């Protein structure tokens, strides 16, 4: 079943009466990298969690594919800012996503090693995953998600707290995943990264999507005051909520 286009309509989420998502409207086509920008507390990470089904929205709808399915059968993965690392080897961690598929241990190992080769961690295959650096752990998490061949990959600030070199490696892998045919929706606070990676920008503040435009237009001619101030680093606190 095709999961694109994804149409999000008037999505709302109000835990304990606090409005985190205040009516999100969004449409995603089947290719490219969309970057979600916005100040802290804008609801970016929550939006990703709602899209992948980890959070049940209070109201609104999501329609997947031309058939408008309420939730996709499979093909949606998410990589978190601090990804889970089992107390096991790098290889065991990367092959973890294959466990529910019922593949043999030998096949999981073969696919896992091939994937580690692609993300430059093959020489660390037998090391403990928890002893990898932050950048290596993020690459491992991306590899684990990539191995499941997702149609939509949600990334929640995957380069937060990484140095430029480690960020560059992660960005290279994200581009490869995109080239491999995976649609990417990624939250970031790094405007430089947004211009390097993004095809289009979703700008959020106060639990709403304020703009959804191609990346060049967003930075050249932001349509909302919030976006303009955000780019200039001058978004006042009262406008963030």
């Amino acid at each position: 079943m095709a999961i694109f286009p994804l149409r999000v309509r008037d999505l709302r989420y109000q835990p304990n009466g606090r409005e985190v998502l205040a009516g999100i409207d969004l449409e995603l086509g089947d290719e490219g990298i969309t970057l979600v920008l916005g100040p802290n507390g804008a609801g970016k990470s929550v939006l990703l969690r709602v899209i992948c089904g980890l959070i049940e929205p209070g109201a609104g709808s999501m329609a997947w594919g031309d058939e408008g399915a309420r939730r996709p059968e499979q093909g949606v993965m998410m990589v978190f800012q601090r990804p889970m690392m089992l107390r096991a080897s790098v290889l065991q961690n990367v092959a973890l996503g294959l466990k529910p598929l019922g593949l043999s241990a030998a096949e999981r190992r073969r696919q896992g090693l091939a994937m580690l080769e692609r993300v430059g961690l093959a020489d660390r295959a037998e090391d403990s995953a928890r002893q990898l650096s932050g950048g290596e752990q993020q690459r491992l998490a991306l590899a684990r998600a990539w191995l499941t061949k997702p149609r939509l990959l949600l990334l929640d600030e995957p380069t937060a707290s990484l140095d430029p070199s480690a960020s560059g490696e992660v960005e290279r892998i994200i581009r490869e995943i995109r080239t491999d045919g995976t649609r990417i929706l990624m939250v970031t606070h790094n405007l430089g990264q947004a211009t390097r990676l993004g095809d289009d920008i979703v700008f959020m503040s106060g639990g709403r999507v304020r703009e959804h435009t191609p990346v060049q237009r967003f930075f050249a001619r932001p349509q909302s005051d919030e976006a303009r101030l955000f780019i200039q680093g001058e978004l006042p606190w009262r406008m963030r909520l």
Partner: protein
Amino acid sequence: MSAFAATFSDAFSLLATFDHTVAEIVVLSLQVSGGAVLLGTLIGLPLGACIAVGRFPGKSTMSVLVNGLMGLPSVVVGVVVYLLLSRSGPFGGFGLLYTPLAMVIAQTLLVIPLMTAITRQVVEDVWQRYAEELQLMRFSWWDSVTTLLYDCRHSLLVAVLAGLGRAMSEVGAVMIVGGNIDRATRVMTTAIALETSKGDLALAIALGAVLIVIILALNALAFMLRHWAMRRYG
């Protein structure tokens, strides 16, 4: 030499000469407690992980119940197992009463709640951190349980050690269902109780020393293993 020092001297002699009676009792104790802990591990660890991961009505009640049963009096377990295995009981036909197997059954029932409760707590803490990602990878409930048990394997040594400590130091249940029969069901704790009541304190102290050394050695081994695992896997 005072009576106190003489008793310790006799106890040391028994240990130094590898006294046959002491060795027999120690071996049987290890077999019974080891068997109980093995069964307790096979039942209690998966059960604890299932309670931690599962979403079902009565989960909180079950957690409270398991925690409460950690302090189950061993004599109560002894009496219940005695009733079940006695000739007129539902399992009387198997003729297990006053055999080492009956002692294994009683000790298993004692260690399961303890091992289950510790496992539930350890696994639940990790599950809270892993749940979202495992859910996204479409892990079944059982896949999650096995993955978490594997991930927590070093921490769960504590559960196994706690079970072993409880089993080896327990006296009430094995006394009731084993009968403390010489060369058949006499283990360290029941022998210590008996020899003390008879006034043969040397044998009691010798067995007590062995019991303490075994428990300390196992704890030291577990500590080293956990320390190594923390360095190896983080």
